[in-house]
């Protein structure tokens, strides 16, 4: 089911967010009501990036994003600092320290991932440019977790398609995200199934 329609043409309309000419026309269908948003390419990228259900993303939202980004950077720097002079914590499962891991390059046991969580998180970010698994899960994984992973996977695909300037695909992915978010809301995020 597609709730977002996207057309592309150079009408004389101006972008609803700035003064540039609007080239992308996004039709949102909600509760049977169609709402058309006319945007320039730059603003359309921002618009499609936000997956909030319910029309136009506010300026407030953009500010939040800006804050969270710089916060994330700060956190990464802090993590590096901690790594420099952290006391020798050893893994409760196997007894190795993070330093020992760094010298051999192999962890001792599955529990190491919990014991050295923060240090590993920044390491994984530099290796994989990501820190969240979104792939296959064991059969006993809850529906909520699966939904959570699916959402994160779709958000990264959304980002990629906007970077490739494939706005048709971005609109489609955004719809999928909204469907899953609605499912999550209606199931009350209860640990059911």
């Amino acid at each position, binding site marked *: 089911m597609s709730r977002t329609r996207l057309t592309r043409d150079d009408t004389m309309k101006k972008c609803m967010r700035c003064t540039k000419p609007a080239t992308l026309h996004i039709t949102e269908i909600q509760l049977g009501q169609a709402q058309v948003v006319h945007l320039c390419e730059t603003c359309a990228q921002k618009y499609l990036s936000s997956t909030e259900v319910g029309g136009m993303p506010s300026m407030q939202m953009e500010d939040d994003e800006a804050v969270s980004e710089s916060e994330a950077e700060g956190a990464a720097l802090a993590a590096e600092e901690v790594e420099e002079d952290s006391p020798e914590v050893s893994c409760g*499962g196997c007894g*190795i320290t993070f330093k020992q891991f760094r010298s051999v390059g*192999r962890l001792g046991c*599955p529990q190491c991932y919990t014991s050295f969580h923060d240090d590993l998180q920044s390491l994984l970010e530099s290796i994989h*440019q990501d820190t969240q*698994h979104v792939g*296959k899960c064991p059969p006993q994984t809850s529906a909520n977790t699966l939904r959570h992973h699916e959402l994160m*996977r779709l958000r990264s695909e959304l980002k990629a398609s906007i970077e490739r300037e494939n706005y048709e695909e971005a609109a489609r992915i955004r719809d999928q995200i909204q469907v899953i978010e609605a499912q999550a809301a209606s199931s009350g995020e209860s640990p059911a199934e």
Partner: protein
Amino acid sequence: MLDFEALTKSSGEWLKGVGPESDVVVSSRIRLARNLDRFPFPPQTTDAIRGEVEAVLRGPVVEVLPPGSMGYVRVDPLETLDRQFLVERQLISREHSEAKGPRGAGIGPQESMSLMVNEEDHLRMQVLRSGLALDECWQEINRIDDELQQQVNFAFNEEFGYLTSCPTNVGTGMRVSVMLHLPALVMTKEIQKVFQSMHKMSLAVRGLYGEGSQAMGDFYQISNQMTLGKSEQQIIKSMQQVIPDVLEYERRTRREMVKENRSKLHDKVSRALGILQSARTITSEETMHLLSSLRLGINLGLIDGIEIPTINELFIHTQPAHLQKLSGTPMESSDRNAARASHIRLRLAPVEPTSEGA
């Protein structure tokens, strides 16, 4: 039990040289890394615990092997030569061959699957296919993984996914690789551009045989480096998007080489065949190099009467452990060079060369 005698004389399904895009793609492989949730990882533990892990996994591994499988073999009691043989055959990894303590491998039908117990992770499973066949590899390995997960709990957390001994494998635990034969790109040095563009896409390019960075025989393996933050399907899809470009690049370069310098190329591949058919002693390195030229000559229709599977098989059968298993005696390097030459002469008994100017 594994029948080494039969294995020595045969060759795996993935070498049969058919499959999609097999003029350039030799084989496709997907491997998954998994660990039991209650045990330390194999490199950092004791033989007693490795023994427990082997005992826990052996049963399930044997059970999930498809009908017609070659069976389960304990690797630790094997002679060095037999372990090296399995490495040359790509049925176990070099790391698995050289690892410590109790360990084993379940080998699937026609050598197209192997499940290594106590490699760097408790379980390393791989599926191999000839040609470009990543979807098939994934379906098969995913099914095996599903079946195993009915019987054992793998170490997993919701944030980092499947937990592995080395953080470079965490998440999906999946390495997707495609082995390519790129002689034209190597000859024209265009291969550097492939390295650069693969690097930009965070894909690794490795030479197949030999040490260091110099690939022997123009075989290169392209594989994903990132295992976390993307789904298995996304990783496979991104490989499927870049591989065709590399294939087309190689084919276009081959066509240009034929167009611009057919007689020189024809000379080069014919000389390669000539040396292989008449040499009395030959190193492994020279063999790889000449077999690579010959493979190109066959694919370009410059050489008739030799099949690609024969060449693929020679790449494997002329390696040190194979030669020694075939002859039934351990040999020093100089004896191996003589045995190698004689084995190749037998397999490449003279064929009619294509008439000049064809």
